[in-house]
């Protein structure tokens, strides 16, 4: 403790914790509610970079940790699906530098396409999971995660949720870790090359590591016990733990910090001190199922509380076993595309042409709402291309011809490129048309850079990937670039022409996002001035 007192969001607390713990590299891909972690880490002087997607981000992070550097990688919950292939085997390898994988879940779906509960990943991939209850713990657990990761040479998941990431609470930081030691590569082939001969013993080692971490968690893990009444005992995790403390201040409560692997004996001992044990957790019944599997008698929450976020009122209802219907809060006004947004012209055209639109994720998903109602599918990032191709393959010709895939620029780099490879490799009989809506930013998550903008996370210049060159060299028949600012009216005749052909086409529409445009001008000016002083 330094005596300093700060009011920080959970995201900013993770960034500060990473900085103070000596993290040498932060990687990630934007996604609400995780995005601010790397932005703040950069602002505080840390080295942070956006990757094209979460899988690459985790791979870069693994390399950095193999080299002995403390590393964090950040993403939203669904990002871990993209990174899962790397995750499931990375847990079998030995990391030298601490590796913390931040997964920011979104129960209630404030800004997501699903409310999956990433605590399952800890169990499935055999990665320890830390769940903070506030910004102080977000700070402390970033640090603790790195230490556990180094001690047992295993990646650790720091599982946050929206109300941790975006809530501000008081943080008392510690004195920063001083370790600027030089790194050098240490060869350890059996621990890092996962061919079956090495992966078999690695799997046994992994289970041994988890057993040792369990013992540590039982004895000295981050567990808070509040001794209250005998009638009611609560076991809780994450932000639900503070809701529970408020909803039932008289109850005894065990708040778990390292929630995988669980300190089951500690919980069993706590259970023995109370007459009734209730598990308070947001999302899926992960914790309660584990307790029951271990033979600990515990109540979970009625099924209706699996959906959405918990809050103090809902926890009171769970404790009262109240399954009466809940009053829905009045619906607010939904967001809409900004006035002047370049996506508007595109969706007006698609609506007017009565296209079947295979959509994707980004600001432009709002094209599904009136007055456009011009989106027919949206599953996950990058799906627009594959889903559009699938529709084309099986629909009758007159309908197949109306199918268009629509994808944003950041999403295209994230996971659209492989879709284009599929289109070139397995072209539908009627061809296909893909629209890349290039608004020069990742608008949805607050205007982050990506490999197609030619700027780094801190907005300084770097190499830029040219979508038109990529698509041409991949073998797309027709590649067009349309400047929407000067020629929005040109989109309709161009699409009519391309839809009539049996060829593969990509149309890149260009016009900066109106919120990003003024900033982009500043970045460009700064880059020009920088270049001049270097001449």
């Amino acid at each position, binding site marked *: 403790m330094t005596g300093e007192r700060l*009011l920080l969001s959970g995201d900013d607390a993770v960034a500060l914790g990473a900085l103070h713990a000596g993290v040498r590299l932060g990687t990630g891909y934007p996604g609400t509610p995780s995005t601010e972690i790397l932005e703040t880490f950069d602002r505080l002087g840390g080295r942070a970079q956006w990757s094209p997607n979460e899988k690459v981000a985790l791979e870069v992070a693994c390399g950095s940790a193999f080299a002995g550097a403390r590393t964090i990688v950040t993403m939203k919950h669904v990002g871990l699906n993209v990174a899962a292939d790397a995750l499931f085997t990375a847990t079998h390898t030995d990391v030298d530098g601490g590796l913390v994988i931040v997964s920011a879940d979104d129960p209630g779906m404030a800004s997501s396409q699903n409310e999956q509960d990433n605590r399952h990943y800890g169990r499935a991939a055999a990665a320890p999971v830390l769940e903070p209850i506030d910004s102080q713990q977000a700070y402390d657990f970033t640090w603790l995660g790195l230490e556990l990761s180094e001690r047992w040479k295993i990646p650790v998941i720091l599982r946050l949720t929206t109300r941790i990431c*975006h809530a501000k609470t008081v943080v008392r930081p510690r004195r920063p870790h001083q370790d600027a030691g030089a790194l050098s590569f240490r060869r350890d082939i059996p621990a890092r090359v996962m061919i079956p001969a090495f992966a078999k013993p690695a799997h046994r080692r992994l289970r041994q590591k988890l057993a040792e971490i369990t013992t540590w968690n039982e004895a000295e893990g981050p567990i808070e016990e509040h001794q209250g009444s005998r009638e009611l005992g609560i076991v809780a995790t994450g932000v639900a733990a503070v809701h529970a403390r408020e909803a039932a201040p008289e109850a005894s409560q065990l708040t778990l910090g390292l929630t995988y692997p669980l300190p089951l004996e500690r919980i069993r001992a706590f259970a023995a001190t109370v007459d009734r044990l209730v598990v308070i957790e947001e999302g899926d019944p992960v914790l309660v199922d584990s307790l029951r599997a271990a033979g600990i008698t515990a109540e979970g929450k009625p099924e209706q509380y699996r959906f959405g976020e918990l*809050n103090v*009122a809902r926890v009171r209802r769970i404790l009262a076993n109240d399954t009466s219907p809940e009053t829905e809060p009045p619906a*607010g*006004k*939904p967001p809409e595309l*900004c006035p002047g947004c370049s996506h508007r012209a595109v969706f007006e055209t698609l609506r007017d042409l009565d296209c079947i639109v295979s959509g994707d994720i980004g600001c432009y998903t709002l094209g599904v709402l009136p007055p456009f109602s011009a989106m027919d599918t949206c599953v996950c990032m990058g799906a627009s291309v594959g889903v559009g191709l699938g529709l084309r393959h099986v629909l009758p010709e007159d309908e197949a011809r109306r199918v268009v895939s629509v994808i944003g620029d950041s999403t295209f780099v994230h996971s659209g490129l492989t879709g284009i490879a599929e289109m070139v490799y397995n072209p539908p009989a009627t061809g296909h048309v893909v629209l890349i809506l290039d608004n020069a930013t990742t608008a*949805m998550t607050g205007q982050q850079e990506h490999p197609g903008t030619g700027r780094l996370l801190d907005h300084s210049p770097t190499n830029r990937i040219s979508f038109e060159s990529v698509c041409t060299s991949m073998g797309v028949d027709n590649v067009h670039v349309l400047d929407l600012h000067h020629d929005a009216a040109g989109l309709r005749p161009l699409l009519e022409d391309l839809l009539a052909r049996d060829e593969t086409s990509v149309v890149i529409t260009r016009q900066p996002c109106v*919120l990003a445009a003024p900033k982009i001008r500043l970045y460009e000016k700064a880059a020009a001035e920088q270049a001049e002083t270097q001449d």
Partner: protein
Amino acid sequence: MQQVKNIVIAGLGGQGVIKASDILADAAFRAGFDVKKSELHGMSQRGGSVSSDVRYGEAVLSPMVPPGEADVLLVLEATQVEVNRPTLRPGGLLIGPEVIEPGALRNRKSLNVALLGALSTALEIDQGHWIAAIHANLATKLHAINEQAFALGREGATRQLGQ
């Protein structure tokens, strides 16, 4: 336990709801209270409903104001009053944009800070902490205009809310 003060600030995206709650939370923090604030945000696009919860006191547990327990509901946009009314406790204080006379603000963008001025008359946080929080959360070139807006809100509240 000492009472926790619950304040909900609501409006539409782009109006500065979150900035207002940042300033309020910072002012309470500077006054030495335990503070928690939270909201749902993340969408870039403008115009949707936004609300933010701020709680302060000796020790705050949940970062969310439980429904029906807000002591004050501060609304920046008249259409958002009904949507947010269920958060207010019986007898709680509602502060709406009408506290500020139309045309009184030099720049409508500082309505959020003007309404914080009105709110400040109902809370036990020293003026000095408010001004420090305004300075810490806004660019230097916006300080003067927002201090004026804050003062205007205080006057408006004293006049209309009779405090």
